């Protein structure tokens, strides 16, 4: 029960007054930003990154964890009361939650979502405590070829699993890799894509890329297509659940994490797939099939619980392997790198205080969130009425603060705008943003591992596949790559010729 002892130490860290304050501030900010329409967790975390610059790493990550979970809690409020989810994972919450709100059961929908997040987060984080040290132990011996294999898997997964078009996913990834190349080569000091500029020699800060693509790109994109009459949020009272509601939902809350957690840990696009799977499962198992589509409470409880658990699963791969499986994890990884900390198997050995303090603060954050969200939901719902010009002007404002705070350089703001315009173009032409962000963050690292592996093997390509771990990872990658071909074959066998549109 080593993990339990470490967790207790973690609580000792997380429960100091100062860290408790950061956790509370994090969940408050996270919920507020998450409730704001148009801001998903990834943008919330990217925008709030500069808030943590002046803090010690532990305080910063405790605050970060609060922001992450808070943004998810807040996001479901937007989905349920406004029916216009900001991110794909929240789509499911709107499917049953919004009809409930329309039928005057918004309070129950919010309660089912909040408790679902709490249950999912709690179970997910417990699984994280149980599994992460084991995974880290197993992974502790992995070397450069294995890391490179993992990163290749991340690249392929993020371009293949997400979105509708692989070509566009790959294009986005390559744009990210290109941005990651800018600066001095880490091994030889060779200048690459700097065009002789001293500013570019430092490379483009990943924070600026993340804020530019997520925040500026989104704000400009929305500005070009701003809805003249934004949706009216449905007014709601204090969330509560009747006995009948609890009877219908408790199993859904418990089932959600079983679906969400494993999907969060693998690079399969985060909460999107598990929430849909959970929705489908709950629908199949429901005794109240007539309610579906008109406001079935299980359809809110299960998916929201799955979403939170998948966030915990995401942290397993992020902390133990340094592998970001979602946009939020990618931004968090960037934050770790800001402090010169490299997440990976050694993190649990080198920075036990930080890791376990972070994990313990997840529990603290969840309790705080439940306490904040149940009684205060009507207050948060008021944020939905914010005039859109203020909202998007505010996003631009805080994006500028964040980019400027990185190094106090005006040129960073110009780069931020340019990357924002790239993000705008990507949204216009259906290039997913996440592969680009993953490319910037993992690209330089992947190159280093590749070169290190080949250095060890003295240039022989076999040096990349000489461990069972790497071979396994490449097999999974290959499976991901040929999966659409297989599926096409299957559909062809079923004699349903489909036009090769993609």
């Amino acid at each position, binding site marked *: 029960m080593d993990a339990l002892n470490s967790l207790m130490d973690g609580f000792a860290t997380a429960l100091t007054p100062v860290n408790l304050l950061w956790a509370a501030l994090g969940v408050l900010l996270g919920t507020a930003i998450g409730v704001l329409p*148009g801001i998903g967790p990834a943008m919330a975390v990217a925008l709030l990154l*500069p*808030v943590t*610059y*002046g*803090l010690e790493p532990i305080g910063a990550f405790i605050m970060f964890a609060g922001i992450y979970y808070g943004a998810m809690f807040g996001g479901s409020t937007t989905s349920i009361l*406004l029916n216009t989810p*900001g991110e794909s994972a929240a789509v499911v919450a709107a499917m049953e939650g919004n009809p409930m709100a329309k039928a005057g059961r918004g309070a129950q929908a919010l309660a089912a979502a909040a408790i679902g997040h709490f249950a999912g987060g709690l179970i997910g984080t417990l699984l994280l405590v149980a599994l992460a040290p084991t995974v880290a132990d197993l992974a502790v011996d992995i070397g450069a070829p294995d890391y490179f294999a993992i990163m290749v898997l991340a690249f392929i997964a993020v371009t293949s699993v997400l979105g509708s*078009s692989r*070509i*566009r996913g790959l294009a986005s990834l390559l744009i990210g*890799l290109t941005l990651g*190349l800018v600066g001095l080569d880490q*091994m*030889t000091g*060779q200048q690459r*894509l700097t065009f002789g500029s001293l500013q570019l020699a430092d490379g483009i800060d990943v924070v600026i890329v993340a804020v530019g693509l997520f925040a*500026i790109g989104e704000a*400009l*994109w*929305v*500005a*070009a*297509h*701003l*809805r*003249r009459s934004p*949706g009216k949020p449905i007014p709601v009272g204090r969330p509560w659940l009747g006995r009948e509601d609890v009877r219908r939902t408790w199993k859904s809350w418990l089932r959600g994490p079983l679906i969400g957690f494993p999907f969060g840990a693998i690079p399969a696009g985060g909460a999107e797939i598990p929430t849909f799977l959970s929705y489908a499962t709950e629908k199949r198992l429901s005794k109240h099939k007539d309610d579906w589509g008109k406001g079935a409470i299980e359809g809110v409880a299960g998916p929201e619980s799955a979403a939170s658990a998948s966030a915990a699963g995401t942290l397993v791969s992020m902390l133990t392997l340094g592998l970001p499986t979602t946009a939020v994890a990618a931004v968090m990884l960037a934050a770790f790198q800001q402090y010169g900390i490299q997440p990976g198997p050694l993190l649990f050995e080198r920075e036990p205080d930080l890791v376990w303090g972070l994990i313990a603060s997840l529990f603290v954050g969840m309790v705080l969130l439940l306490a904040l969200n149940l009684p205060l939901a009507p207050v948060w719902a008021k944020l939905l009425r914010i*005039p*859109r*010009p*203020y*909202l998007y*002007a*505010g996003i*631009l*404002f805080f994006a*500028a*603060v964040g980019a*400027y*705070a990185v190094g*106090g350089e*005006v040129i960073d*703001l*110009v780069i931020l*705008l340019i990357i924002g315009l790239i993000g*705008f*173009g990507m*949204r*216009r*032409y*259906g*290039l997913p943003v996440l592969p680009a962000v993953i490319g910037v963050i993992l690209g330089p690292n992947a*190159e280093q591992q*590749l*070169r290190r592996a*080949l*250095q060890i093997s*003295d*240039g022989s390509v076999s040096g990349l596949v000489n461990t069972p771990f790497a071979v396994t990872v490449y097999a999974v990658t290959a499976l991901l790559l040929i999966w659409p071909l297989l599926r096409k074959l299957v559909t062809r066998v079923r004699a349903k010729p489909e036009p090769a549109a993609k």
Partner: protein
Amino acid sequence: MTTRTTDVPGTPPTPPTPPTSSDTRRAWLREHSELGVCVLLLALGVLVLTDALTMDVDITQRGPVGPKTVPVVVGVGLLVIAALLAVDVLRGGHGEAEGGEDVDLSEPADWRTVLLLAGVFLGSAVLIEPLGFPVAGALLFWGAAFALGSRRLDKDPLIAAALSLFTYVVFNNLLGVPLPGGPLMGVL
């Protein structure tokens, strides 16, 4: 990489030749404006390759893979993807524009707002050093809100000033992230 290029890239200044053919050509280009993305990817690929191939690498290269290899792979990848995307677009594939809470895709894109926002952003970036963050930040917020259609002359500047000053104090004095105060903070 300007917004203009992402709009209707490569639209030539149409000569006053037969209006019908130029009209159809323009319609075709508009329909296939995604080809502009291919052009940009192609240009980026060429840029990355040129940079990689003109690199001086006789300085201490450690290991068999030098600083050139990965840029070459990325550059070639960009060229290949540009070609594949072009084929996909010509075959009728198209990337779906991203939806969202406040996004109304039924209306054509409002370029004026986007350019205005970009201008306001650049302007504030330039002003941040001479005027200090509180003033430049307030101008950014007010300008952006104005560009987005807010015309409350009584409220907007006040909100902008309060937000900017508050952010400055929180970051500079509480969170320990220094921001330039400018002459205004010198006076206060």
